[in-house]
């Protein structure tokens, strides 16, 4: 909890969202002394606004390595969920029944098929088992689809999880492992003296041997402080949540899923915005309209709440993992799919950081050098 008496840590993780918490948990499990410095209750907290999908089928068009990275995390997720449950007693309800992307017109179906083709035609891309299905085939698995559904894509290893319980499990696990969590400690400056990182925060100064930037879109202005580069392009998305109903939807659809609690979540929209304020009804109307066309029985459900959130999004949508050459022991981690990649972050990235270095060969594609075509990213910062 807050106000630890020790001021020295092995690792300071900047950002207590899903990415930061996953990495911190992985580090703490390996015996690292970890502090997480986080913003406060009403900060943007982008990763909290997720759709809770552990999604494979759409990943990697333009970067085949991302598809492989995603599949790796999807395959590691069950084990990750099991470890969390064993440690904290909290079941995050991970399920991997397969998932759908549904098309409501021939144009949508064609666009989807074309996208999937281009994705799978990339040399070296991993096969995720994603297939295009016609309406009749989909109806066998999703009996409630409406007449407007013309077809879609299905991937047998898509899944979802209770992401809020995941947050809770990670933080509970972190507390049990003796990690320190400091809210209201937004970082304003990072200094490096005598091999120690000094984080200047809204509260007190924090000292650690390593610093891991996991502050989402804010990584953009924090990265240069440690000789790194993280170009971000936040976007805003809206979500609708309904009241609880009896289970009826076994498979998540990329824009409609039923949670383990019985509520139905509906998305998704994309606007270029940097704050979640000013949520609009017309966007909700379009999302509701599409959801009801996909599943007409949803029509009578009450909307219990609706919110907008900022998506953490790098400039090209693919993750950034880098360690600094000018500032040894400093790392930057950014991604969009914090839920999907949580297993990798906890079980692959964290061990690399604990050992002192990212496997730059395995993670070469995710270097921010790709934005500038310079392998040493510190030259850009």
């Amino acid at each position, binding site marked *: 909890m807050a106000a630890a008496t020790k001021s020295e840590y092995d690792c300071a993780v900047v950002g207590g969202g899903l990415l930061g918490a996953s990495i911190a948990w992985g580090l703490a499990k390996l015996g690292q002394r970890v502090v997480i410095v986080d913003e406060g209750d009403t900060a943007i907290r982008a990763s909290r606004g997720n759709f809770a999908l552990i999604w494979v089928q759409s990943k990697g068009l333009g970067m085949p390595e991302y598809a492989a990275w995603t599949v790796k995390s999807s395959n590691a997720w069950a084990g990750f969920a099991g470890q969390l449950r064993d440690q904290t007693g909290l079941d995050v309800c991970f399920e991997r029944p397969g998932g759908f992307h549904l098309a409501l017109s021939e144009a949508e179906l064609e666009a989807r098929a074309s996208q999937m083709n281009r994705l799978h035609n990339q040399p070296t891309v991993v096969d995720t088992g994603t297939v295009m299905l016609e309406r009749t085939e989909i109806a066998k698995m999703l009996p409630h689809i409406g007449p407007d559904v013309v077809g879609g894509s299905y991937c047998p290893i898509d899944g979802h999880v209770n992401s809020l319980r995941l*947050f809770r499990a990670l933080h509970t696990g972190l507390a049990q492992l003796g990690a320190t969590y400091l809210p209201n400690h937004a970082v304003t400056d990072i200094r490096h003296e005598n091999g120690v990182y000094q984080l200047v925060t809204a509260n007190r100064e924090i000292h650690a041997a390593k610093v891991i930037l996991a502050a989402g879109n804010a990584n953009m202005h924090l990265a240069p402080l440690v000789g790194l580069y993280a170009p971000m392009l936040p976007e805003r998305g809206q979500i609708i949540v309904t009241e609880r109903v009896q289970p009826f939807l076994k498979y998540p659809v990329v824009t409609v899923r039923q949670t383990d609690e019985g509520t139905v979540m509906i998305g998704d*929209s994309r606007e270029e915005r940097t704050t979640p304020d000013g949520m609009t*009804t017309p966007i909700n*109307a379009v999302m509701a*309209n599409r959801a009801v066309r996909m599943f007409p029985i949803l029509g009578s459900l*009450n*909307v219990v*709440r609706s919110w907008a959130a900022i998506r953490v999004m790098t400039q090209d949508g693919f993750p950034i993992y880098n360690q600094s050459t000018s500032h040894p022991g400093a790392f930057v981690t950014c991604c969009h799919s914090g839920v999907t990649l949580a297993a990798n972050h906890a079980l692959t990235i964290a061990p690399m950081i604990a050992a002192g270095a990212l496997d730059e060969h395995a993670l070469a594609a995710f270097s921010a050098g790709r934005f500038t075509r310079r392998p040493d990213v510190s030259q850009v910062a």
Partner: protein
Amino acid sequence: MTTEPELKSDYDVAIVGAGPAGLAAAAVTAGCGLSTVLLDENPGAGGQVYRAIETTPVRDPKILDRDYTDGQDLILDLKDTTAQHVRNAVVWSLAQDGEIGVSIDGRAHMLRAKRTILATGAMERPFPIPGWTLPGVMTAGGAQTLLKASGIVPEGRIVMAGCGPLLWLCAYQLLQAGCNVQAILDTTDPAAQRSSIRHAARFATSPYVTKGVKLMAAVRRKIRVITGVTALAAHGDGQLETVTYSAKLGPVDRMTADHLLLHHGVIPNVNLAMSVGISHTWDDLQLCWTPNVDSFGTTSISGIAIAGDGAGIAGALAAQCRGRLAGIAAVRAIESNATGLPDELTVRRDLTHAMRGRRFLDHLYRPSRAFRIPTGDTIVCRCEEITADQIKATVALGVEGPNQMKSFLRCGMGPCQGRLCGTTVTELIADVRGVSPQDVGYYRLRPPVKPITLAELAGLPQTEDATKAVVRL
């Protein structure tokens, strides 16, 4: 007042809530010729204090006296104007630019007004005691609503608990109706009593004192009143069977009961106001969030005003006055040459008179900590069944505010959107952290603030920009 069914898409003034503030505001704006729509979710005008005033079966003045029936005047004032009163109209969204989302008969409509006056009033302060979710436990205000609207009263053994003028009024009304009120468990805090003394002289000159004193005396003659109650719980298997209590930290006593009516004050119903982004401040005397408004009720968002108890608890008479002031401001903003406005100074004088003695009541009936900050297994969030202990344990994890708390525990995520748990969660977190509720903050609220079906939402106009944001081919 017309009741034409056709809803227009644009009005000069939209008023949400047909209680005393809303009715008074509508009479002013419509009386000056501004196109006015009065949207109310109930079947009839009157809000809570004058509930069902046009249709009540209770005609006995010994039960519902002039303080109730005088509300008819507000409705009569409106009848001669062109104000459009839409019944069963549930407002679920309000945007800063004056766009309102409202559902009527299962259909959603969007309309726009140049000025909006929120008159959504107050609600009972949550009273989280062990067992408060049992069938048989209700608010005293709820019992009054049943009485006024349908002449229905509880039968069997009734126990009332809490503090505040409404508790005494309700007890009196139920007695007059022949109900068996066994006891009043008075939770008035002795510390609060002491702090109210310096305001007592002013209260003595208020419009409430004579009636209040007579009423309490009448109730005390017939009902056993146990004062200094410091603990309270409801028990039963699937329904209320007994109430336990202890007074002045003494031993626990029990009484069998068929009904437990709870009340310890009313607080503004802030969901619509907060969802549009109106700034609020924690009032530590009234122990609730109050919108920041000027002397006309105008909020931090220009074009939106709040009138009545929703702007701060002050009672029905004050609500009328504040409704008129908000109406005056709306008229001046839209039609500076309007005639027929009530005299502002007279309204302000009436308001001052109506507010006399409120400070005394605020102090005297400030609920004690024990009943605002529950412990153990007591349910805080009724919708999601989250307990006080769960919330405390989560603060210990480093969760310092209600929004993170909501993410971790789901408190505030149910259909009531935090109306019955919000103040408790804020106060609990503040208590554990040793900071003020102001520092802790409140749930971030967004539309829809009342349920709307997906089909209704789906039927609203779909703009090109919105479609592009969602359908990304």
